[in-house]
């Protein structure tokens, strides 16, 4: 009985099939969308190819010896010395100072927002952090030069602190990175399920013990990822150091005197009229490639940490 109805239905509608029809418009649209999706791959390839090509030219120049680049403590293009260390140490110094500010403060703010603050306070503070995160970095640069530097010179004395110094740039960079670390950490903390906290309270733990011994360890992968992203951001940060850290590579570990970071050097070199294929031109590509890979590796590590060590609750 049922078989016959099915058969008759098939016989009644032979004029169209349920198979997918080839439609030109759909295919064209899909092709365009795929191109858009694939476009970002071109961007990455473009970065690697263009930066790699020019960086290779840089290392092929007679003045540049790779071994010297890695070991020499002098970066003086006009006399043919290209040791990366002066640029690297000042980059590490500004990054280190920034993280020394941003990690404790960021964690503090995040724990306060997620564990202590009441809903209305959280609702007013989070937009404030977003505003802080939305301010262009050149404004932070202005702040470093016109506020932080005079402040440091007031505190430590004008003979000790130069007008351009890495301490001021690093401190302000810490303020810049603070909202980034805070919001990522806060996300990680609020993802920890309520039941864990309740269980700890049931055992008689105080609020602090719940926060530091239960919630923070449970969210550790997210916090580690936040810190690594913060470091990567600090290494690539440009305008604050370009304005406040000083011009001219300087191999020093004194945070109160001027020293040029990798990014600051790129900006200063390319600010003038840069002629193609000069050694300066090629050197910024080599430095750019170094920045690209450093931050890429840091970002990949951070993503891997999140994937690998995430505690999954329900």
């Amino acid at each position: 009985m049922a078989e016959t109805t099915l058969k008759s239905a098939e016989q009644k509608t032979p004029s169209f099939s349920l198979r997918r029809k080839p439609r030109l418009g759909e295919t064209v649209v899909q092709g365009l969308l795929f191109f858009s999706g694939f476009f970002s791959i071109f961007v990455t390839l473009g970065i690697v190819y263009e930066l790699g090509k020019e960086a290779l030219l840089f290392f092929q120049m007679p003045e540049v010896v790779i071994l010297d680049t890695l070991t020499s403590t002098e970066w003086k293009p006009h006399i043919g010395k290209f040791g990366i260390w002066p640029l690297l140490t000042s980059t590490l110094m500004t990054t280190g100072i920034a993280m020394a500010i941003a990690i404790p403060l960021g964690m503090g703010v995040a724990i306060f927002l997620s564990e202590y603050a009441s809903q209305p306070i959280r609702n007013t503070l989070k937009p404030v952090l977003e505003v802080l995160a939305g301010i262009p970095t050149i404004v932070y640069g202005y702040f470093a030069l016109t506020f932080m530097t005079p402040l440091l010179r007031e505190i430590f004395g004008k003979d000790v602190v130069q007008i351009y110094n890495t301490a001021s740039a690093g401190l302000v960079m810490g303020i810049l990175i603070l909202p980034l670390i805070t919001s990522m950490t806060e996300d990680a903390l609020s993802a920890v399920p309520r039941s864990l906290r309740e269980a700890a309270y049931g055992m008689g733990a105080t609020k602090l013990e719940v926060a530091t011994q239960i919630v923070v360890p449970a969210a550790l992968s997210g916090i580690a990822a936040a810190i690594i992203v913060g470091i990567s951001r600090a290494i690539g940060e440009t305008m604050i150091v370009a304005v406040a850290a000083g011009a001219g590579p300087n191999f020093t570990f004194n945070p109160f005197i001027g020293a040029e970071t990798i990014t600051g050097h790129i900006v200063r070199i390319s600010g003038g009229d840069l002629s193609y294929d000069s050694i300066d031109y090629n050197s910024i590509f080599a430095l750019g490639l170094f920045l690209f890979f450093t931050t890429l590796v840091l970002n990949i590590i951070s993503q891997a940490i999140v994937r690998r060590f995430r505690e999954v609750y329900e």
Partner: protein
Amino acid sequence: MTKKLVVEEFADNLDARNRRGTIWHLLFQASTVVGILALIALMLNVINAAFGYVAYEARVDPDTLTVDGTPLEDQSKDQLVTLLQSELSRGAYNKLDNEKSFAERSRDDVFQLVVERIIRPKVVAVWDLWPSLTQAGEVRATVAQEYPKAELDFISWLTTDFVTRPQTSEPLTAGVRTAVLGSLWTIFFTILLAFPIGVGAAIYLEEYASDNWLNRIIQTNINNLAGVPSIVYGILGLAIFVRALEPLTSGEVFGLVDPTTANGRTVLSAGLTLGLLVLPIIIINAQEAIRAVPHSLRNASFGVGATKWQTVWSHVLPNAMPGILTGTILAVSRAIGETAPLVVVGASTAISFDPESPFSKFTTLPIQIYQWTSRPQSEFRSLAAASILVLLILLLSLNASAILLRNRFSRRY
């Protein structure tokens, strides 16, 4: 007995634990306060420099310009025009006349020209807002003693004139019109590149892409691109748009080369570079917006026989559009504030003429701030502060519109 012991053990260190809890609570609170104080200090620091006393001297004493016993301020427009004609070179006078004929200009406008071109006030000292308010008497005394010929005025560096005047090298008459127009031109090309490709990529990844290795690579790649430092995009822009595509970005292939530029360091190159920079941000935001559209909507559309693209175009996109636009506005405000990549691409340091085509030289608001901040004289710091205020107001209104958009059109399913 045992029970009591446990309670006592608890009580033993309970005070200490609670004390520790209070101390750390205060520390967490303090770090939040520090963050807020930093924001307040940043704002006050900018406002402090954007207003205050300024002492300036005239390069040409206005008293020498008295005609028939009429002081300069009371002269008629015709007298002022005659004055300009006699004091300026013929070329400079004709140039002004060509920009806008003197017959059309108002008296105030002409008076302004006389001040700018003949009297040419020169800043000799600047005070910030705080000393201007608290030590006004001392400021006046200092000026009277050290600069007897100088005039002292309390001014706001941020005025409507400041926004509408072109850039000049004279602090008192400098403005940011050139830079604001440059920013707008640049952003136009940024959106033109990043919006269609960004939304297209998001649609592809959310609606079409199956879970295979290629699409996973695309997704990972986008996430990684979002973390690349902006200066690297600047270097990429320098290599590709400024150099490799120079015939295109300088307008050569269209026969539209701007005689003042004649190379690839143009508005177009800058806009495209920023376009690459914000592309991953737009894609990620648009993906989230598309993901928020419920599946029932798509299924209903498929159920009535719509094709995939019809479903996306008429159901998914309209519903995701507020989210996509909000994300795009946020990405654009990031692009407006970018400085480093544009320095590398080759923003001009000092141009006083407005960009007129995609192939013009360019400067943008953040670049202008960078230039003025880098100068040691405090009058330029004040100009930088005023342009920071312009930039922040611009960004704030963009963000406000994004929030309004989100609240106005957001739907909950």
